[in-house]
């Protein structure tokens, strides 16, 4: 055996893979570079010609990536807010105020063993979390985050939302059915029954709104609510909001309707047999669902990205940095220095126990905060989408807070009460809402034919 052969045999499997992959990657990279250099122009032209496709791919990637920090943030909120309501402190070890704990949790589930128990239908078992996760991520595509900031503008956006949102139950049912565990089965079937039942009042509760808006395009619905906060649809559809919110809670499987994973009854429901990242995907899906539901509530009823009041001092801050010329360089070089000294001086004067370097450090930090604040304010006033995003996220997280707050307060309902509530109360109420809305529109149009 040759030296090369011996060395090759000593390598572990990952080592063999790496040593094989390195030349392949090198060749591919070289080829890619060569292609771009040689065919750069035509590629750019093709991309420019198919801009909607490029835009869609980029939007999907961003939406997919966005779910991770969103889920982490909501998990952290859930841990911290429920802890504070329980008179506990909650996470406080990892990161400032424990804010990185959910990241650590994410890493933990990544590193755990991805275990497939004996007897499960392994194909279905593996795909179930993917289906659940994708169903919740895909709904994010039509949510308008800010003016011009949305994945895809669909004329039937709302319908798309409900259609895809209903798919998540397929994943849960797959998980419950394939797990070869009776608790999982019960959880999956509960999920199916619950989501299918609540889909109807959920959809019917927004029909009144669709009548008012005359469209299912979410962007249009948001633009219709511009102006003062009294223009929001919540004031024209109060019953609709209530039904929508309750049904959406059930749809997302949140307390008090979290029967699918009721830990005191059926251990962890459909997720009982899952471990590692597959379990993590279910929980990502759940928290993304919370975000999506909150976002949709905001979009439909609470003005979306519109501020609750029109900006009272319309100013034009369209500064072109290029017009400053050499002054921009001076600005960038001198202003931070001056600001640092200006902020450090009062700190240094205020207490003689603070050393010079500490004061400078404090000044530097304050300068950074100040500059970020200035740029933020400029962006808020100058850029529509920044202002829209700020308001949208603010409102959405208020609703996320309400979801968490409900989880901290309420006990769980029973499955028969859940069904009773959906069919005997929510469905008639949503039909009533639809009837009143339609009648009001007819009366209004008869009285004031435009």
């Amino acid at each position, binding site marked *: 055996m040759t030296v090369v052969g011996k060395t090759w045999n000593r390598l572990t499997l990952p080592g063999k893979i790496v040593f094989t992959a390195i030349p392949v990657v090198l060749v591919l990279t070289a080829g890619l570079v060569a292609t771009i250099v040689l065919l750069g122009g035509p590629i750019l032209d093709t991309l420019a010609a198919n801009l909607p496709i490029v835009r869609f791919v980029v939007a999907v990637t961003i939406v997919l990536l966005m779910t991770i920090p969103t889920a982490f943030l909501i998990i952290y909120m859930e841990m911290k807010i429920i802890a504070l309501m329980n008179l506990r402190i909650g996470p406080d070890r990892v990161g400032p105020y424990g804010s990185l704990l959910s990241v650590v949790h994410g890493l933990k589930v990544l590193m755990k063993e991805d275990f497939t128990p004996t007897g499960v239908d392994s194909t279905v078992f593996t795909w179930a979390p993917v289906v659940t996760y994708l169903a919740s991520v895909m709904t994010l595509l039509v949510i308008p985050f800010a003016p011009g900031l949305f994945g895809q503008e669909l004329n039937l956006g709302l319908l798309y939302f409900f259609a895809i949102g209903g798919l998540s139950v397929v994943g849960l049912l797959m998980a419950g059915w394939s797990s070869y565990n009776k608790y999982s089965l019960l959880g999956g079937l509960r999920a199916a029954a619950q989501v299918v039942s609540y889909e109807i009042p959920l959809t019917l509760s927004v029909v009144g709104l669709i009548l008012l808006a005359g469209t299912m395009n979410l962007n249009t619905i948001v633009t219709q609510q511009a102006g003062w906060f009294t223009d929001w649809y919540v004031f024209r559809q109060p019953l609709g909001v209530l039904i929508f919110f309750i049904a959406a809670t059930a749809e997302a499987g949140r307390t*008090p309707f979290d029967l699918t994973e009721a830990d*005191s009854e059926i251990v962890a429901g459909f997720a009982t047999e899952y471990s590692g990242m597959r379990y993590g995907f279910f929980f990502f899906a759940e928290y993304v669902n919370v975000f999506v539901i909150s976002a949709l509530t905001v979009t439909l009823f609470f003005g979306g990205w519109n501020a609750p009041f029109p900006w009272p001092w319309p100013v034009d801050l369209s500064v072109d940095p290029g017009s400053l010329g050499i002054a921009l360089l001076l600005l960038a070089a001198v202003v931070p220095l001056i600001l640092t000294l200006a902020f450090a001086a009062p700190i240094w004067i205020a207490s003689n126990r603070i050393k010079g370097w500490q004061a400078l450090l404090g000044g530097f930090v304050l300068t950074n905060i100040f500059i970020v604040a200035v740029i933020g304010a400029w962006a808020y006033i100058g850029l529509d989408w920044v202002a829209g995003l700020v308001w949208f996220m603010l409102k959405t997280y208020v609703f996320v807070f309400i979801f968490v707050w409900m989880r901290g307060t309420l006990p769980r309902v029973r*499955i028969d009460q859940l069904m009773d509530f959906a069919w005997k109360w929510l469905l008639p109420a949503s039909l009533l809402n639809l009837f009143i809305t339609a009648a009001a529109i007819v009366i209004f149009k008869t009285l004031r034919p435009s």
Partner: protein
Amino acid sequence: MPVSESHQSTDDPRVTLDRALGVFEPVPPYPPRTEREAEFYTLGDGQMFINMGPQHPSTHGVLRVVLKLDGEKVVDLDPVLGYLHRGVEKLCENADYHQAICYTDPLEYVSSLFNEWAPVLAFEKLMDVQVPRRAEYIRVLSSELNRIASHALFLGWMALDLGGLTPVLWSFIERDEIVDMLAALTGQRMLFNYFRIGGVNGDLNHDFMSRLGEWMSKATEQIDSGNALLNENEIFVRRMRGLGTIDTATALRMVMTGPNLRATGVPFDIRRAHPYSVFPELEFDIPTRTEGDCLARYLLRMDEIRQSLRIIDQCLHNMPDGPIMAKLPRLLRPRPGRAYAAVEGPRGQYSTYAISDGTDQPFRMRIHDPSFIHLQSVGLMMPGHLLADTMAIMASLDPIMGGVDK
């Protein structure tokens, strides 16, 4: 289905299926050992078994319940006990009279003082010991505190089993304050080992009294405000009302005692019915409710907390001076005889029956525990209810598996 010898385990279709899949479900004993087992473990059309416990988030310890379900509806159930059996009675018989008391502590680990009180009372009867009045008052005071701690824990677990995350932590705050207080008095947090034959281990001290005073000033308000979360909550009340109903006759037939019996309308309380200690001198009511369902049991315990606060208040006002231990020989050798004593605990009647053969160890010591008795009635309560309610019914009876399995 008759119990026949011809059943071999290889004929069992379930076992064959399990072998084929390589999976071993918790299958029942096969062939069945009794008629009842044969009946229970025969599945009807569309029925299935589900095995709750011994590792389940909410079986209050290591209880295993095999449920026969039709969909989510419970058809029949078979509780399996004994996972926490420690042979406490036998251990007590191998220890002398002082040592036996400390074995009874961890029986029901949330209400240890009552577990101590019953054997102490029985041994005192056996030896004709006159307990000093101050010791009796201290016993009443500390045990009523323990009752509140136990009930507070119950209220929290009840909510947790119905899916409420918050009440359990609020009631743990309550309980921790009491338990720390009792630690200041007795020297231990949970397994107090405080009562002695002829008195108590230590006198009231400053640490305990200051903590007690601080707690008493805010106790009522704290308990009320915490309970406001659930008492009026529609979801909670709707789930609890009419759940696990048991009528007076059945409750008496199942020998239920304590709050579970009083929730069916029988004002039976050993502190009044067969008074012991200084309870005849104290003024308190026996709260009763007539519904006999989970909500009644839940609310009744809340009323009992208020009565316990009343008793504590009176104890503090009437606390006499004097010794806390009777004069006793170091080695206790009671005359041959037998004695029975019962106390009213937070779960019902705790009693001890002790036989002495004249040596320094009890010849026989029988411990009667309310949790075990109450657990028998789940077979009457659960069928017909949903799977989600099994845990609520179980929680409303408040069994502690340490006491059930002894």
